[in-house]
């Protein structure tokens, strides 16, 4: 039983990281109908920025964290301007390919600049554990869970309560109509990319104490975050986190109770089953086209 709870908690913590990356996917998808395959790599780059600020320049953890978030928000805007804006409105597949290309580019450039070793960031949560009875919970994992809950709530409120959030949903529905209504669609898209890169950075920095950051971490985790976003229905913010937690828990349970090898495949098997039964994901909305 204790093992089970322990696995459950570490699965939830892992799942929250997936959920955070998936949140980035969902944000961009909600606002622009673009699927950003480079989201994991944005996370990785954010981790490396934070590593540079905290580990190499020796800044305070929180200052470095904020610096990395701001730098990555700017980078997200840059990436949107250069890669995504010219092809908005073209078939989804072109944009998927463009972001895959962006991911390739980021991975190898990061590998060239920082090298291909593993890096670790010292954080206030790196040490120490919380003991509840005989249950041992590490602070770094708890910090991930807490940050995910906070970010998810903030983003949910942002999308559903603020004017800017409404503008984003409107431009996702119909960019042209949104533009006619006076919504500055280009700026909105740009802001969405900034937010999603910032969320990715949070994921990267929180992740750094748990799994080290290296130039391929984005690919590995990004590919796990995909099933998370799809499970949640790709357009739903709470769905992304729930999907992420499900994937994380499934993975850690499979790693513990099933023979070796199941750990890596189990999330994908679950994903395929869910897609078979409910193709639009658990929280998704089915779209129909009028003919």
């Amino acid at each position, binding site marked *: 039983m204790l093992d089970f709870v322990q696995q459950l908690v570490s699965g939830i913590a892992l799942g929250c990281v997936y959920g955070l990356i998936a949140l980035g996917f969902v944000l961009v998808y909600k606002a622009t109908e673009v699927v950003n395959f480079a989201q994991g790599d944005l996370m990785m780059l954010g981790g490396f920025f934070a590593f540079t600020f905290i580990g190499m320049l020796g800044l305070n953890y929180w200052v470095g964290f904020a610096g990395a978030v701001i730098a990555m928000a700017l980078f997200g805007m840059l990436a949107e301007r250069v890669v995504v804006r010219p092809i*908005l409105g073209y078939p989804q597949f072109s944009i998927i390919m463009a972001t895959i*290309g962006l991911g390739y580019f980021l991975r190898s450039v990061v590998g060239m600049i920082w090298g*291909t070793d593993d890096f670790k960031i010292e954080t206030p949560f790196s040490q120490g554990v919380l003991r509840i009875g005989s249950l041992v919970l590490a602070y770094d994992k708890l910090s991930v869970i807490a940050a995910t809950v906070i970010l998810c709530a903030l983003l949910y409120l942002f999308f559903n309560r603020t004017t800017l959030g409404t503008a984003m949903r409107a431009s996702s529905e119909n960019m042209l109509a949104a533009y006619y209504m006076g919504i500055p669609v280009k700026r909105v898209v740009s802001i969405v990319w900034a937010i999603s890169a910032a969320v990715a950075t949070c994921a990267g920095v929180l992740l750094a104490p748990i799994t080290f950051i290296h130039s391929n971490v984005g690919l590995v985790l990004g590919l796990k975050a995909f099933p998370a976003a799809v499970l949640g229905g*790709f357009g739903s913010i709470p769905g992304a986190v729930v999907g992420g937690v499900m994937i994380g828990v499934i993975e850690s349970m499979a790693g513990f109770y099933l023979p070796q090898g199941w750990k*890596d495949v189990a999330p994908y098997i679950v994903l*395929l089953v869910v*897609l078979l039964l409910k193709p639009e994901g658990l929280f998704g909305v089915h*779209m129909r086209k009028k003919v």
Partner: protein
Amino acid sequence: MRFLFKTDYEDDIRLFPHSGYFVSYGVLLALLVIAPFVLSSYIVSQLVFVCIYATVGVGLMILTGFTGQASLGHAAFLAIGAYTAAYLQQFDVPFPVYFLAAGLLTGLVGALVGFPALRLQGIYLVIATISFAFIVEEVLARWESVTHGNEGMRVKTMSLFGTMVPRDGPVFYFLCLSVLILTIVGTLNLLRSPTGRAFVAIRDSETAARSMGINVSLYKVKSFAISAGITGLAGVLFAHKLSFISPEMFTLQLSIEFIIVILIGGTFSLHGAVLGAIFLVMIDPFLTYLKDDMPGVIAGLAATFGAGKATADGIQSSVAAFASANGLKGAIYGVIIVLFVLFEPLGLYGRWLKIKLFFQLFPLYKRATFKRQKIYVKSERNR
């Protein structure tokens, strides 16, 4: 400019619309036939890879280019073909038999993947195919009694009708070339048959296709099966060419390379698959060239333009450092994909068509001829 006067449907679906095709393809075929006797063995070896990649490209083109179903899991089909060959070869099954068996088995698996894919589209389909590829990769690594797991399998030299066919020899090249040509001709015939027309109709609008009485599910499954089968055939050749296969060779990276092949070539024509394959396979020799010769060339240029010896040496070493940096290949891939998507969405073959049309229409060419329509409305994108 040549105007083709068509009076019936037979004229419209001819493989060779006019005599010029016989000349140009005849010359190309002649060049390809004499290639192994003229070119160095390294280049011929690269040509074999071009043939294999182009075969996969043709298979993927049927699915992605003509039926409109994206797949990022074709490495798995290639793996199934390759492993079937390696497994059957252990029991001294002759090459033609296991070649066809690999194609059939992969086609069957493709059909099985096609069924779940029926309800999916767009991004969901991409993710489902990625998941499928991951599962296949893991199965290959774990099913040790058949696949020898991560140790990989050795593929013996091919024996065709009692004679050995070494993987570097001209016979193997001709084999790959003829497989490619047969695949292309077969696909061209497929595309002018009712089945191919149905594929294209599904790509252009599923709703419209369905209302015209096309059984969309059936044709999607067919498209998956044919595409996978062709990829499986290429997998057999791939296994023989590499003479060793292991699960980590068939990763997502390879699937992405296949997509790059058709993306760079142009996703609307079979020419694109071949052009894209040439482009992709030639990246490696290009990188080698970059590493070995480029620093000297650039330094030489700098010296010609009046740089001092110290500066020229500095340039040479920095270019060398850049060219041999780790992961340069990844960066080049990334930049190439992004540039093609942004500036040449119709790929190399699209560029060729544009150039051709420019000269045919000479002073009257309009750039807008090839402009694609942008769609900004979500419900329109949902087909």
